[in-house]
Structures are given as C-alpha cells and as structure tokens.
C-alpha cells in the first residue's frame, strides 16, 4: 500500500523528475495527450510531476468569468480541488483553441465561452483523470474501474496515493478516445455556489497585470493623434512644440495616414507631446454629417417600404389586417450611437522576439484577427507572430473589432520604428469615447392591431440601421439574403405567438464605424418588443405578465423556458404587490440561447425624478456551471443596460464626436440602482451564455415601470426624452 497521500508527502519521497502530462486536442478535435518529450505546445490542461494542475484558458478574461469557469470544468472531471488548479491564458492557435461556434477562429464573443467549451474542457479533464487512474491501476496491478480520483487522491482496491505519483507513467499512456464524463449527479464543483472566482486575489491587491500595466525594458509609449472627424487623413504636422518636452522621442505619420504616432519615454511625456502636436487634416473623405441627419435618415427609412422583407410575409395583407383592427398601436423608436467605454482604455504592446518575429501583449479578445493582421502588416509568417493574452479591463465588445483596429494601429506604429524597442500603444479615455466603433443607431416603427377581445391580429415591424456584419469577415456567417441577422435578432424569432407578423429591414449607408455592443441587436430589439407588448397588454386591458404568458402557450421549448423565467421573476419580485409609492415594470427576452426576465421597481416619476429601487432577475441558462458568476453577470448586464438607457448617447456634429470623456458620457454610478436580486432556474440543458443576456430586458423593464407612472419613452437615452432621475 502506498502511504504518500499528500502532494507534499509525495514530493519529499520522490526523486525530482521532469515528467509532464499534457492533455489537449488535435486540430481535428480528437482528445490527445503528450508528455514532456513529446511536448504538446498547446494543451487544455497540463499536470506537472509535482502534481500541479494548470488549466489553459482559451477565452480571454474581461471579468465574465472563463478563468473560473473553464478551470471548474477541468477540476470537476479530474477530481482535484479547484483551489489547487492554476490557470494560464492560451496562446494564439486557431487550430487548437478555436471557438467551436466560430469555426477556425479563436475568439471570445456572443456569450459563447462556456457554451462551446463545456464538453471540450470536461473531456480534457476526464481524459487526464482516466490516464492517471490507468497508470495507477497498472502500477498496483488492479482494474482501473476499481479506482477513483477525488480531491487529488487516487484510491481503491486497498491503495491510496496522490495523483502526482503517476504523472510520469500516465504521460506514456494514449489518451482515451471517449473518457467517461461524470453524470451530473456526481458534480461537486459544477453548480456549486461556493466555488470562488479564480481571479479575485490578484484583482484586490494590485498585482493583476492588465495590458495597460505592462512595462517592458526599453519600451516606448506611443499615442496616436487621431482625426477629429471620422475618416480624416493626415496632410502634414508640426511637432516643434513637442520637441521641448522631456521624454518626447519623435512623431511619425502612420503609413495609412490615419494618424500621427507620438513616441515618448513615458506616458505623461507622450500625453503632453500629443497635446503640443499640430496636425493638418485632410477631411475630403471624412464623415461630414451630424447625428441629427443620421437620425432623420433612419426615421425616414422606417416610414418607407423596407429594403428587405425578413419574414417573407405579405406586407400589404398584414397592413390591411392592422388597419381593420379594433385598436391600432403605432410607435416609432430611436436608439442612439453608444460607446462601449471599458474601464481599461485600449492598449497593447508589440516587441520583437529573438527569432525575428514579434510578440503582442494584449487583453486579446479575438487572437486570430490581430494574429493575421500583424502577420500582414509586419510581413511576418504567422508562426513568427505570438500573442500573450493578459487580463482585459472590460470590453463589452470593444476589444473585438473585425478590423483588429487598435492592434493594427500598434503594428503600424511599431512598423515605423526600427523595431528594436517595444512599442506600447496607449489610448486615453478621449481616444476611446471619440474613437469610433459604436453600437449603431437604429430606428424601429411598429404597428400592432388588436381585435375587440384584445388579441393581436397583425404586427408590422420595420427596422432601419447600419449593418454591423456587412463588409467584415463575419458577413458569410451572419448575413443571409442581404439581411444582417444582428440587425433584427429578437424580432422575427420572438417566442411570442404573434399572428400576422411582418418584419422589414432597411440598411442605411455607412454612417460611422459600428460594432457589436453587449448583446448586439438585442440592445434595441428587446426594448421595442417588450415595450410594444406592454402597450398591447395595456390596450387589451390585461395584466402585462398574464398577457405575455398567454402568448407563450404554444408548447414550444422556447416558450416554456421564457414563460418560466417570466413567472419566476414575477413571483420573486412580488409582481403586482409594489409598496406604496412604487411602480413596477417587467420585460423578458431570449438572447444567446439564454432566457432572462427582469422586474424593475421604481419610486418617483418621470417629471419629479425616478429612482430605481430594486431589480429582480430570473435567468435560465441551462446548467449553471458557476452560479455566483452567473449572478454577477446578470447584475452587471442589468447595470450596463440601465445606465446607457438612462443617460448615454454618442452624437456627432459635422462628423466629429461631441462627447469625449466620462463627464459627458456619464457612467452608471453606485447610487443609481438600489438592489438587484438574481434567481437561476435549475436546468439540465446545455449551458448557454450569461455575459450578454442580462442586458436586453433591463431597459424595457425600466421603461415599462416609468410608463406606469404616465410617461412612455420610445427614444433613448431617457434623460434626453423627458425623464429625470433622482
């Protein structure tokens, strides 16, 4: 019998070996394993001879929780305490670490991190466990089925030892093609609310390294003087006033003329030097419109025949049934441009490597994009470009541009140097707010007809806005028959049983650089659907919850699950039982495979000032891997949705952004929301997203609560459309 049951005990007794067990996947997706000699460069888990288990996280960590989530999967299936499992962010390798829902592309987005990793990381953990058990079975001359691995200890058939003892021999065994996955009844970590975030310790003592914190020897800081109007090009510049600034190195026009790179020895010198720089801009190809013109264009588009018939239904017939209805609701909506404004301004560093390549240090959301972009710009083969992914200080979509915008800017800045010094590109908050890539502005016009019994008989829904996906590498994926799904998602696929629905879409010409923004099309479609349904309920004289539930009785899974969260939020939030002086609003929406209902309770009213007292949220996201992370994502998604709906918009005057920093793009503050209470629906379905789905129902739920005080808001932000907040 082996007595060394602790890792420490094993280490004392064992000769030091360099054995490492790697478990990962081949590019065809099959589970594969290797040892230190056979070296697997890019595994999902590695187990050192001292028993240290390290999960390799293929998704970047911007706070949404994959460092905890994917580590949970490995620890669960391996049978090791999660506290003992370290984690590292994966390098860029689209063959191994691709997002299984994105094809051959490594990236994080669309709330897919857990959905696409759930089986893959469990299988890797399970394969590692089975190999360790097999190695122990061989050593003890027993059958593997007699053994178990729990808390890092292999035991059974009268034997017991720490897994560390078998790392070397396990690494010689071929990976099982189909390792046995735990039955959900055996889960100890998945679904356990007591599992704590892996990234909390370094984030509360200042030791977490974000890209902004990187300081390489001999680095230069690069700030870019950007055109004050979108699309302006450098015609010339004068840096005479910058030359006296201590630490200023030089200013150089970027090869694409999109800006002037200001190089300095430190950030403050670069900031001052950029301030001192005088740039002559060529605005001949620049955006010249104001946001008012863009708004007028969108509103005109929803009042004309749409470019695309999304539903394929007969528009004239739908219009006729609405026209002859007992009650007709006719509402026009407008949603402004929005900036993402992650807390950490955009930044990354490029340094030359000894092999003649480069290494990008970045809070990198979509490694494959910048990997290819750097390869092209710096004229290096793909294998000479490496990416070191660091913590990202938020994103909300901003770090994942199809153009790899800021990494390209860093590459262009690096390219105009002699490449001997690392170049750290730093954006300021002003660069961020004015720097383009906004949630596109959208308009909707909806006409709903109800018969005398209050039943919906027709729904004519026109949408106009700028496509996010057209002209990007994601076009094939998201655009079908001309319709960008991200412009209309949540409307034609609404779970409500809506007879006679027509949905039309008009793409407007390029107005600004636009980008997905936490929950993408659902940011506006959920608002329109859920406020219209509320108005329809009111017109029908029905309770808003009962009215919705009546539209969800078709027996489809989608309908049952969305009704489930709606009922749960209503029950937990005390629907219909608001205290004196309080008003409630509710909304429910499916996005990214998850179902979320939110009940917002306010005091006050639009005229005297609204205070959000309480938000009750119910979420069904399949198996809840990390319940507390899910709750946190709902809390954050609600805050993000409400803050922007309350008071944020980006406006343009003659092609220049009017806002520049937090004082005029005021973030949600701590006092804006009283309390948030999140409830998770127990489920055995596959896990779905949580990063985005909390956002869509929040603004319409607030709007519905405010409407109950007498003010219906159909244009955002609320503060510019008749609502004051206390």
């Amino acid at each position: 019998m082996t007595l060394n049951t602790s890792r420490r005990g094993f280490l004392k007794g064992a000769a030091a070996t360099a054995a490492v067990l790697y478990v990962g996947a081949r590019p065809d997706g099959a589970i594969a394993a290797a040892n230190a000699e056979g070296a697997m460069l890019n595994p999902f888990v590695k187990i050192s001879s001292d028993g240290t288990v390290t999960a390799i996280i293929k998704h970047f960590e911007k706070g949404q929780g994959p460092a905890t989530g994917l580590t949970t999967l490995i620890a669960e299936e391996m049978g090791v305490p999660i506290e003992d499992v370290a984690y590292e962010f994966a390098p860029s390798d689209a063959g191994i670490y691709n997002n299984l829902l994105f094809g051959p592309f490594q990236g994080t987005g669309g709330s897919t991190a857990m959905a696409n990793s759930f089986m893959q990381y469990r299988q890797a953990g399970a394969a590692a466990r089975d190999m360790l058990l097999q190695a122990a079975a061989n050593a003890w001359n027993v059958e593997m089925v007699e053994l178990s691995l729990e808390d890092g200890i292999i035991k059974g058939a009268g034997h017991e030892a720490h897994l560390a003892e078998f790392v070397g021999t396990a690494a010689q065994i071929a990976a099982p093609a189909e390792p046995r996955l735990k039955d959900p009844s055996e889960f100890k970590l998945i679904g356990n609310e007591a599992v704590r975030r892996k990234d909390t310790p370094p984030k509360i003592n200042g030791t977490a390294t974000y890209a902004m914190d990187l300081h390489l020897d001999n680095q230069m800081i690069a700030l870019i003087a950007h055109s004050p109007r979108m699309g302006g090009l450098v015609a010339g510049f004068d840096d005479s006033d910058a030359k006296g600034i201590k630490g200023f190195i030089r200013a150089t026009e970027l090869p694409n003329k999109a800006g002037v790179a200001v190089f300095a020895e430190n950030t403050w010198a670069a900031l001052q030097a950029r301030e001192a720089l005088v740039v002559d801009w060529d605005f001949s190809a620049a955006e010249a419109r104001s946001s008012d013109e863009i708004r007028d264009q969108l509103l005109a588009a929803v009042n004309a025949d749409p470019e695309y018939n999304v539903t394929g239904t007969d528009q004239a017939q739908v219009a006729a049934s609405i026209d002859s209805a007992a009650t007709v609701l006719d509402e026009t909506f407008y949603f402004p441009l929005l900036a993402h404004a992650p807390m950490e301004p955009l930044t990354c560093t490029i340094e030359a490597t000894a092999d003649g390549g480069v290494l990008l240090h970045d809070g990198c959301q979509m490694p494959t994009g910048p990997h290819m972009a750097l390869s092209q710009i710096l004229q290096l083969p793909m294998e000479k470009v490496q990416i070191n992914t660091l913590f990202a200080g938020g994103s909300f979509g901003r770090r994942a541009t199809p153009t790899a915008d800021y990494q390209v800017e860093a590459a262009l800045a690096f390219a105009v140097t002699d490449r001997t010094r690392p170049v750290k590109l730093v954006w300021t908050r002003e660069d961020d707010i004015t720097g383009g890539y906004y949630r596109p502005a959208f308009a909707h016009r909806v006409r709903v007809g109800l018969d005398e019994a209050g039943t919906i008989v027709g729904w004519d829904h026109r949408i106009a806005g700028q496509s996010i996906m057209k002209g990007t590498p994601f076009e094939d994926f998201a655009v079908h028959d001309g319709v960008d799904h991200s412009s209309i998602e949540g409307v034609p696929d609404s779970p409500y049983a809506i007879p006679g629905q027509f949905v039309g879409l008009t793409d407007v010409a390029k107005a600004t650089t636009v980008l997905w923004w936490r929950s993408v099309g659902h940011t506006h479609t959920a608002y329109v659907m859920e406020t219209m349904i509320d108005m329809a309920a009111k017109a029908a004289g029905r309770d808003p919850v009962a009215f919705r539930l009546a539209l969800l009785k078709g027996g489809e899974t989608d309908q049952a699950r969305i009704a489930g969260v709606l009922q749960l939020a209503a029950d937990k939030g005390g629907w219909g039982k608001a205290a004196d002086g309080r008003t409630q609003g509710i909304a429910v929406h499916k996005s990214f495979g998850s179902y979320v209902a939110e009940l917002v309770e306010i005091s006050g009213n639009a005229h005297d000032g609204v205070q959000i007292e309480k938000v009750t949220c119910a979420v069904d996201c399949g198996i809840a891997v990390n319940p507390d992370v899910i709750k946190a994502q709902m809390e954050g998604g609600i805050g993000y949705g409400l803050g922007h709906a309350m008071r944020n918009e980006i406006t343009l005057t003659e092609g220049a952004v009017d806002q520049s920093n937090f004082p005029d793009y005021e973030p949600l503050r701590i006092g804006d929301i009283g309390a948030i209470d999140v409830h998770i629906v127990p489920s055995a379905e596959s896990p779905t997203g949580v990063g985005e789905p909390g956002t869509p129902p929040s603004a319409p739920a607030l709007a519905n609560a405010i409407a109950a005080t007498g003010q219906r808001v159909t244009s955002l932000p609320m503060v510019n459309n008749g609502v004051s907040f206390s």
Partner: protein
Amino acid sequence: MAMTLKLNGATRDVDAEPGTPLLWVIRDELKLTGTKFGCGVASCGACTVHLDGEPVRSCQTYVEDVEGAEITTIEGLNSDVSTAVQQAWTELDVVQCGYCQSGQIMSAVGLLTENAQPTVEEIDSYMDGNACRCATYQRIRAAIQRASQIMEA
C-alpha cells in the same frame, strides 16, 4: 527634477517634472501598476490613492504637491480596515474585470476609516466618484457593509 516621496512606508527618490500627475509617477516611474489610469480627469476614481490617509485622485494630484505627505497605494495597504475590506471583497467575489477595483478598495478603506458603520446612503454618497463599468456596485455596497461587520467583530 529630483524629488523624494514617502510611499507605502518607504522613501522613494523620483525624477519627475513639476506638473506631472502623481498617477504617472506611481505607474511609470515607480512601476506600481495597481493604481489605474481610467479617465485622467478625476471622473472615474480608478487612480485613487491615499494622501495622509485620505483618498485622492492621483491623476489630478501633482507630484510637487505631495512631497512630505504619506502616499499609500493599493500595494501598500496594511491596516485592520484594509484587511477587513479585502476579506469582504474576497468573500463576496466583488470583482469582474477588476480594473476599477483598486480604486474602489482605496475609497472603501477611506470611508470605513472615517465612518466604521456607514449607512447605505453614506456608502452611495462616498463611493459616487468610483465608476465601475462592469456595474459591480451592489457587491461593492454589500462588501463595505460586510467589512464593517468584520471590523466590529
């Protein structure tokens, strides 16, 4: 220009031009990067440090004005209050992206140092200048209340 700062209990010689925000001296010169750059205009609180125990925004505090003062950054926190705050932040897993959290913690320690049992209104008022784009606010509020309990125990 050579200056001497008292930072996290030690004396540090720095070379910085007058007018340089303390933030950049701390981050670029002293390479203590727990203090964050978020807005540069004292509007987000990510750069919060303590000057003689009082939270200030280091992006709008000039280096020549702080010679002689005791500067504390997140790396230098070491008191019963800060221990309670960090324990509460851990218990409640307050962080998401985490980028603002150094500043949140510096402000929370400032609050609990002057008021060990703040009301919800006092918390909201004191913490109003610390933005969190992940909107971890309700956990921040709860963690401050929890830290207050820990301090009392």
